[in-house]
């Protein structure tokens, strides 16, 4: 590879100055002329039939400009997959969770809108409600969806090799069950939508999203408008973490209100609404049976997993599969069976979360620790013996083209001085390890690829047009860096138009860790396409062969002869003068198996490549209070190639904080039946600055053959392995496995007491 001048450097991001000055506008900051305030009326019942809705008094309140109910919608049921279409926004027939949308108003101000909600009368007929998976699966339980007997939403079944045979030849077999309640995203920005129709019926709509194109199509379906009239606009977004990838009822409701009122409408969710009425993570019970040989190599694994999906399908088939898929990628397992069940309950809807199934991931990893203990093998060695390697096929037949898992284990262990510490630390002082693997993209049919265009100005500047969206992770900067590097100009020469469905071509979105791999590659290819055309003209001017040219720092020159150069802008003008203006076009479609389907056919290439990594945590427990002090952490990830090391470190640090510190020590939801008791930051405890340990980021590069400059992903992975490392470390510190998460101090004290009673 030619020496890089922009890629691989920790240059400042293009978007952060505007955020630091407060100029960056998020959806709730938007102000449109004559804009109305929208508010949603929500069901107080977890399960009830809607007999009638009377909005007449609300409509008559001065200042109210529109009221909508199911009567105003098409009644179409939406679902991520054709076979999971079960949610009608503003349902006509029944509500299925406390907080479900029933009606909405748009008024001149918030006070009026709130008052209008109190004037809407809904006649409900309460139905029996189901709040736990056990209740939901009991024979004779009421059906939440008539189409789903036993309230089973999804059953993912994977069976590879022969687990029975594997167990029969295992030296040691153990089975454990791990559980964890829901956690949730707590993106800093609460959900909001602003919608505005123009006089010809074009819809402009803004909302925090993880894929504008994946918002536009369902909107077009629900509103019965062609895609070209649905413009999901670019807006600054305050985090997603997997919870903003689908169309939301608020999107459709806001558009309906705006259309009816003939004025722009903005709905801003409270924090509670963001928690209850967008998505949560799944609670989960995972029973894992693992058989190993004498050396600790896994010979067979049989896993049964139940996940509480809440009231609707959402991304059910994906969410039910990914916890398993991450672990089948991370560790070799020839004989494996997985039965994953997503169960409906009358609770808020669950989606995909950055830590995909903490009970599952922590269970697989902690069990390796436990087995190791029984065999006299330390946790690091257990990981090394089972680690995925490049060239392997996963049990569900994905080829792993690049993998430096072993290197991440070794480098993390070395940096953490594992050998000096493990087994040698004082009481209540522990060290633990977790390993992850994450996909770069899911099979998404006609929406799985990204395209990009580049146009040039006569002074040598360029505009890159891409569907890629930035949720805060730095995707916009990534595209600018790639384009600048490939074209040989500077980042400040490049304008980026992105995530606007009127202008930008389709892109899969940021929630499946594929923006760099797919979106970045598309931009790179568009730049290469443009460069080819530019070099044709430059070659003429330099009397050289186009293949001998290169570009850097706004100059095009002959390789090895930097004095033989012309300014980049000159080549652009030459093309214009010739009547052949230069533009670039590129598309990247990941090489996945299009026949692979989550439920029907969970076999074949899932993503084109995968990232791998290891996290190690060192902790100290206060045996009197059970409080955990995390002393230091090491996160090592095979990211393929670090396009911007500081940006990647930011993902490591944020992921560890979310998945480890929060996810395993303080984050969990509390319920009273269908009522969520901790929907906001007062009682849902997110990690604070003084809670955090030192985080050592160790970037490992396996140079993926297909990733842009070899890059893969870094956004989701560390959240998972950090969760595992935290559990491993705490259990090591107290000498007892804990299988119920998170590790709140009461559980730690209980485990310590149980152990000392045994002794």
């Amino acid at each position: 590879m030619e020496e890089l001048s922009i890629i691989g450097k920790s240059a400042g991001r293009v978007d952060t100055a505007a955020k630091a000055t407060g100029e960056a506008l998020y959806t709730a900051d938007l102000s449109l002329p004559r804009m109305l305030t929208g508010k949603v009326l929500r069901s107080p019942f977890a399960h009830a039939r809607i007999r009638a809705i009377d909005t007449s008094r609300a409509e008559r309140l001065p200042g109210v400009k529109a009221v909508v109910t199911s009567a105003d919608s098409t009644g179409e049921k939406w679902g991520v997959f054709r076979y999971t279409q079960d949610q009608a926004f503003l349902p006509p027939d029944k509500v299925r969770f406390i907080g479900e949308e029933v009606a909405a108003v748009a008024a001149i101000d918030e006070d009026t809108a709130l008052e209008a909600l109190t004037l809407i009368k809904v006649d409900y007929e309460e139905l029996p409600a189901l709040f736990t998976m056990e209740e939901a699966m009991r024979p004779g339980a009421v059906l939440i969806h008539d189409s789903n007997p036993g309230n089973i939403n999804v059953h993912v079944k994977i069976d590879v090799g022969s687990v029975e045979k594997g167990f029969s030849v295992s030296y040691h077999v153990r089975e454990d069950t791990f559980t964890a309640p829901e956690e949730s995203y707590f993106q800093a920005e609460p959900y909001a939508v602003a919608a505005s129709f123009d006089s010809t019926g074009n819809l402009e709509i803004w909302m925090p999203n993880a894929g504008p194109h994946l918002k536009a199509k369902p909107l077009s379906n629900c509103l019965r408008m062609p895609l070209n009239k649905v413009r999901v606009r670019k807006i600054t977004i305050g985090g997603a973490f997997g919870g903003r990838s689908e169309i939301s009822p608020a999107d459709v409701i806001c558009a309906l209100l705006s259309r009816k009122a003939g004025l722009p409408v903005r709905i801003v969710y409270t924090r509670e609404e963001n928690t209850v009425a967008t998505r949560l993570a799944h609670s989960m019970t995972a029973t894992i049976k693992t058989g190993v040989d004498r050396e600790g190599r896994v010979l067979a694994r049989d896993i049964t997993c139940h996940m509480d999906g809440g009231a609707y399908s959402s991304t059910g088939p994906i969410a039910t599969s990914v916890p398993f898929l991450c672990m089948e990628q991370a560790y070799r397992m020839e004989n494996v069976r997985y039965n994953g069940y997503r169960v409906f309950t009358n609770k808020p809807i669950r989606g995909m979360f950055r830590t995909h199934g903490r009970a599952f991931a922590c269970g697989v990893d902690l069990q390796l620790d436990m087995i190791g203990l029984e065999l006299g093998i330390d946790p690091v060695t257990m990981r090394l013996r089972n680690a995925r390697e490049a060239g392997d096929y996963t049990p569900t037949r994905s080829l792993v083209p690049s993998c430096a898992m072993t290197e991440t284990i070794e480098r993390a262990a070395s940096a953490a001085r594992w050998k000096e510490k493990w087994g040698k630390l004082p009481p209540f002082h522990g060290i633990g390890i977790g390993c992850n693997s994450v996909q770069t993209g899911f099979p998404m049919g006609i929406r799985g690829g990204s395209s990009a265009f580049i146009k040039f100005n006569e002074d040598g500047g360029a505009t890159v047009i891409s569907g890629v969206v930035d949720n805060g992770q730095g995707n916009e900067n990534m595209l600018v860096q790639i384009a600048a590097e490939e074209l040989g100009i500077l980042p400040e020469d490049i304008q980026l138009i992105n995530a606007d469905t009127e202008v930008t071509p389709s892109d899969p979105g940021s929630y499946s860790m594929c923006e760099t791999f797919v979106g970045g590659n598309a931009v790179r290819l568009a730049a290469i396409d443009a460069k080819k055309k530019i070099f044709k003209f430059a070659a003429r001017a330099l009397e050289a062969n186009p293949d001998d040219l290169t570009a850097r720092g706004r100059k095009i020159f002959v390789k090895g002869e930097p004095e033989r150069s012309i300014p980049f802008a000159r080549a652009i003008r030459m093309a214009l003068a010739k009547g052949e203006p230069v533009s670039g076009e590129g598309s990247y479609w990941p090489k996945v198996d299009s026949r692979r389907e989550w439920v029907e056919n969970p076999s074949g290439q899932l993503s084109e490549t995968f990232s791998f990594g290891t996290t190690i945590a060192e902790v100290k427990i206060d045996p009197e209070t059970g409080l955990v002090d995390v002393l230091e952490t090491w996160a090592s990830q095979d990211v393929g190639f670090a396009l911007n090391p500081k940006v990647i470190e930011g993902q490591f640090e944020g992921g560890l904080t979310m998945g480890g510190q929060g996810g395993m020590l303080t984050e969990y939801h509390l319920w009273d039946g269908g009522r969520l008791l901790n929907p906001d930051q007062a009682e849902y405890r997110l990690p604070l600055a003084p809670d955090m340990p030192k985080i050592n980021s160790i970037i490992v590069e396996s140079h993926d053959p297909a990733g842009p400059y070899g890059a893969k992903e870094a956004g989701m992975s560390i959240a998972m392995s950090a969760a595992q490392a935290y559990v491993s470390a705490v259990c090591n510190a107290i000498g007892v496995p804990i299988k119920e998460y998170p590790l709140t101090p009461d559980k730690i004290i209980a485990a310590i007491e149980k152990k000392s009673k045994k002794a």
Partner: protein
Amino acid sequence: MRLPSFQYLSPGTVKEALETIAAHKGKVLIVAGGTDIVNRLRQRLVSAPYVMSLKAISELKGIKKNKGELVISAGTTLREVAASPEVSGLFPALSQSASCTAAPPIRNMATIGGNLLQDTRCLFYNQSELVRKAAPACLKQGGRVCAAVKGATRCLSVYQGDLAPALIACNAKAVLKKAGSSRTVQVADIFSNKGKRPLAVEEDELLTRIVIPIPSGPYSCAYEKLRLRKGLDYPFASAAAFLSLSAKGVIDRARVVLGACGPAPVLVEDAAAFLVGRKPGDADGLSAARCALKVCRVVENVALPASYRKKMAVVMAGRAIGEALGQLSGAGA
């Protein structure tokens, strides 16, 4: 989310304030720092036609050391209390409790009076209308059932203020004024120990200042708080300890007060027996702390289990007592 509508009043003196709350008795909410009341307004737990601000009343600000007593006006912010050399020099438990309340920006607004007079809390009560309307009204809301404890007939919502245990341990008094009269009570007597109406303060009374007697001989005090994070949170368990020495160097007064274990801060009466009459080095802090178990009325109404919080009441009491003993020994008493 918008607050409910109200009219705003801003008297300039204590006298004016007392006249106002008398004139609108029962219809006016007082805002000092706002960090408790504004939250409850936003959740529609309370509402009133009038909100009266104390911001313009300079008489309600300031810390003053008089002869034999420390006087803290009720409108003094927690930041000022925590930063005051008089407070930290005379009553470190109070400094500690103020320093660990919530987070710095909240301490910049919250006042000692407001913190003391905060409402009790419960996971089932401190909720939005969406959550509350989805279940029958609970006891604290004026309903007939307890959402936290099936069949309970008394509200056991938790008093989670940090300053009260420290103040009570230090024998502090509160001056309550109403138009035409004034009364001074022990801070401990401000609390009714009833979750439904936790404060024995009338609707037309205003807390104006806290008065803490300064003991003449050697004494020590400490406050310990248990929270899950290193900031922001209300205590899951807390304890304050106060010890004083007689001329002979023997503990003559010991007060151990628990917070966050019932609708009011609780004096652990039996603890004194293991401390009083002994030299600091011979005091049985462990047994004193264990007395916390008897008075700790915790139920499942906050985010961590009651059994854990009960154990932690003992741990916090033990640590507060230990620290107070250590201060005495360190002072060479």
